[in-house]
């Protein structure tokens, strides 16, 4: 499982959103109920999925819609445990569905067998079969197909169809995640195979997911796509071939409203029934809505695996000094920021590991706000307070740090102002320079063209090994096509070794110890400055029950058949 930047155009298209607070208190009483007798559930989200193809590109909006219409083999559930959705039993060494072996070239390998649920069908009635998984594996292995990540397919070097419902993959690497099928999902071979075989290179644009998304045979979840309005919304109907528990709503309409003020207005006007927290309102806006319309909506705040932090460039001489990074965190009153700006609904982060994750170390070193200590650390590092309130070193250089974030993201911009003020108290000058997300993520961060600190977030899955953000091999460089996400340039031999060791340690307790060591180093070295774990605000009508957000990459829509009207 990887780490992903949550970007989304919702962060970009907030041209007009600065007026969201204009939704006046007391003017929300007379909204008409347009829920169409609860036959239909209309959901608002802030992003439109670029594609509906399950194996091409990853974005939150697509995951959310596909959660209703498809089922993966395995997924991390609401309790952050790996579970089967499309398979019968999670493979394990104990139940014999996973077996360690030696690969033909003499490496440690593993063969993993998944047996599909008997009643699992595509919307046209065709059973979901091992052939569908075999086809997805073949398409993924052919790198001209254009699937995004290829690591899974490189590692899974052989696929064996045991019977129509059973498939075995052979991996040339043994990791603790062997039971997870990850993004390897069945593709309807009876529809897609001929299109792919015709020319893998242009399959992406000829796939039925792009050319005829309303074909029922593409969908194997409780709903199927009934109509698509590009850029505006997708309407889903019950999938008649679904053999699981019957979903409560005949139809689900997912509407894209990128501007959060407009999203809220449509909710209050009764055009939307709920706003999905995965792609919904910012926390402060949701809290304000909760105060005004408590009788109509429930707001559920789900803290999750969105790690808000400051990446600092370790190649900038002053920031290479660990003491300066420690002073940066000591002079930030993160608890107060969370309390004042987010109503205390987001837990302060001490490392990049979420306290809800089982590998989290509760005894990890913490850096509570301590301005005096921050000053002492800076003094020790040779940065003395100057008469103008900004520290200088012996060479007379000012302690100035460029502080960047995504332009137009009001929440981050507000935090940025507070951070600037707090650092100033410690004698650290922060110069704000923001960029649109496209420039920040596409150029400045990915090519390491920043000199100071950049505020953004990572979203991950439970027990996600942060190799791409911490391993020294993952520092983006021109010779590796700028791939990798170790934007800070952090280098630590022990961390590199831990990042190699954790994935291949199958013993849970031994792995926990490795994780604890990793967190200890992180807290001490501070490759990045931890801020907090973001919470999603889910807005549901008071009559809706059963929605259980996960707080990680798997969307709540994966369990839509459990949603009920009170």
């Amino acid at each position, binding site marked *: 499982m990887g*780490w*992903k930047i949550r*970007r989304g155009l919702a962060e970009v298209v907030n041209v*007009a959103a600065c007026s969201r607070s204009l939704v006046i208190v007391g003017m*929300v009483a007379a909204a008409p109920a347009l829920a169409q007798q609860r036959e239909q559930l209309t959901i608002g989200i802030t992003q*439109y999925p670029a594609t509906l193809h399950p194996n091409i590109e990853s974005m939150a909006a697509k995951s959310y819609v596909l959660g209703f219409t498809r089922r993966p083999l395995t997924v991390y559930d609401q309790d952050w445990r790996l579970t089967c959705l499309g398979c019968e039993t999670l493979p394990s060494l104990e139940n014999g569905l996973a077996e360690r072996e030696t690969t033909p070239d003499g490496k440690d390998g593993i063969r993993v067998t998944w047996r599909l649920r008997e009643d699992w069908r595509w919307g046209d009635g065709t059973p979901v079969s091992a052939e569908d998984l075999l086809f997805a594996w073949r398409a993924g292995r052919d790198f001209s197909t254009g699937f995004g*990540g290829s690591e899974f397919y490189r590692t899974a070097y052989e696929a064996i169809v045991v019977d129509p419902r059973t498939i075995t993959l052979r991996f040339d690497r043994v990791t603790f995640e062997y039971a997870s099928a990850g993004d390897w999902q069945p593709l309807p071979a009876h529809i897609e195979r001929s299109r792919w075989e015709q020319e893998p290179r242009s399959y992406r644009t000829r796939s039925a997911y792009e050319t005829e998304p309303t074909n029922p045979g593409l969908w194997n979840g409780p709903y199927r796509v009934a109509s698509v309005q590009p850029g505006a919304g997708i309407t889903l109907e019950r999938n008649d071939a679904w053999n699981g528990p019957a979903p409560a709503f005949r139809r689900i309409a997912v509407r894209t409203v990128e501007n959060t003020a407009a999203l809220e207005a449509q909710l209050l*006007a009764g055009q939307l029934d709920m706003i999905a927290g995965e792609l919904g309102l910012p926390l402060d806006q949701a809290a304000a809505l909760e105060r005004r319309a408590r009788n109509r909506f429930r707001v559920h705040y789900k803290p999750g695996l969105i790690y808000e932090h400051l990446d600092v460039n370790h190649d900038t001489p002053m920031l290479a000094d660990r003491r300066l990074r420690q002073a940066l965190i000591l002079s930030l009153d993160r608890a107060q920021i969370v309390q004042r700006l987010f109503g205390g609904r987001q837990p302060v982060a001490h490392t990049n590991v979420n306290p809800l994750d089982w590998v989290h170390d509760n005894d990890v070193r913490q850096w509570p706000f301590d301005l005096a200590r921050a000053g002492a650390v800076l003094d020790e590092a040779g940065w003395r307070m100057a008469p103008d309130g900004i520290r200088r070193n012996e060479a007379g250089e000012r302690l100035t740090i460029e502080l960047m974030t995504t332009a137009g993201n009001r929440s981050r911009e507000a935090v940025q102002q507070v951070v600037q003020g707090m650092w100033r108290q410690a004698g650290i000058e922060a110069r704000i320079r923001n960029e649109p997300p496209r420039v920040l993520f596409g150029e400045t961060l990915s090519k390491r063209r920043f000199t100071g600190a950049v505020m953004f977030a990572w979203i991950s899955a439970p027990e996600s090994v942060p190799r*791409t953000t911490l391993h020294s091999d993952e520092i983006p460089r021109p010779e590796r096509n700028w791939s990798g996400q170790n934007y800070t340039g952090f280098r630590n031999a022990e961390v590199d070794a831990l990042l190699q060791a954790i994935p291949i340690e199958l013993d849970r307790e031994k792995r926990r110890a490795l994780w604890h060591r990793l967190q200890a180093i992180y807290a001490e070295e501070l490759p990045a400055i931890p801020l907090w774990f973001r919470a999603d605000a889910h807005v549901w009508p008071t009559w809706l029950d059963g929605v259980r957000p996960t707080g990680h990459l798997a969307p709540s829509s994966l369990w839509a058949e459990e949603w009920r009207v009170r």
Partner: protein
Amino acid sequence: MIRLLGARLVQIAVTMAVLSFAMFLLIGLMPGDPIDLAIAGDPRLTAEDAARLRALHGLDQPLLARYAAWAGALLEGRFGHSRLFAQPVADIILPALGSTLVLLGAALAVAATLGIGLGLLAAARPRLAPLVDAIAILGQSAPSFWLGILLIILFAVTLGWLPAGGTSETGGLDRLRFLLLPVVTLAIANLAAYARHSASAVGLALREPWVTAARARGNAEARVLLRHALPNAAVPILQVAALDAGALVGGALITETLFARPGMGKLIYDAVMGNDTNLALIALLLVALVTMLATLAADLAQRALDPRLRDA
């Protein structure tokens, strides 16, 4: 007239060719190509993946070669595929263009009708001119997104008369309900120009000797205003309308975002920000073409209205 039309069409074709190259160059030089963004968003992409995907999408070719390939395909009627929406560009642009033309057409009509009406009032009743000026200033100075939010709060949230945004799923007259608030928002911001230009042009026309002659012939004041003064004052107003056709696309971005209406303004914004070169280029060129054709139509209409211009 036909010679003029031919010359202007050639001029438009040349301008479009130059524009297409300039836009291709500018978009190509923007920071972060699609693969950079994909790498930033998906850590599983390795260096080899990045090189493979760049080659797959032709991004490893020099900019000029990419332009030549793109322009060649365009001339053959192949608009390419949108990276953002994973659909042929034409399939995305045509509905968006239709939606925006309806929105802009209606907004232009409302703005022009109300604006010219106010202008006539100011010209015919100079005592009311300050009031008309005040209305025009108010309309012009109210930011569209703010005005839109206010209208949404009043008519959608509080009164529940109109939808807060989106598009009609049932079609027919229901479409008008969804169109009303965005049209009014856009029209209010634009009526000031019509009010002021028509007030000034009609005011000048009313002082002309032929208006005095018309009055002397016993024509009613309304007839003098509408049949004599207005047609003679129409030339600058038409020019404003032609320029508005392009400028309104900017306003449409805000209106379409606020009211969650798919359209060209939002499409162009999404395409540029999302690095969807094919979609951005075609959409931008289409807007430029519409603006140039609107200007041409206005020029022809001016010549039809004013015989002196035909000989110019």
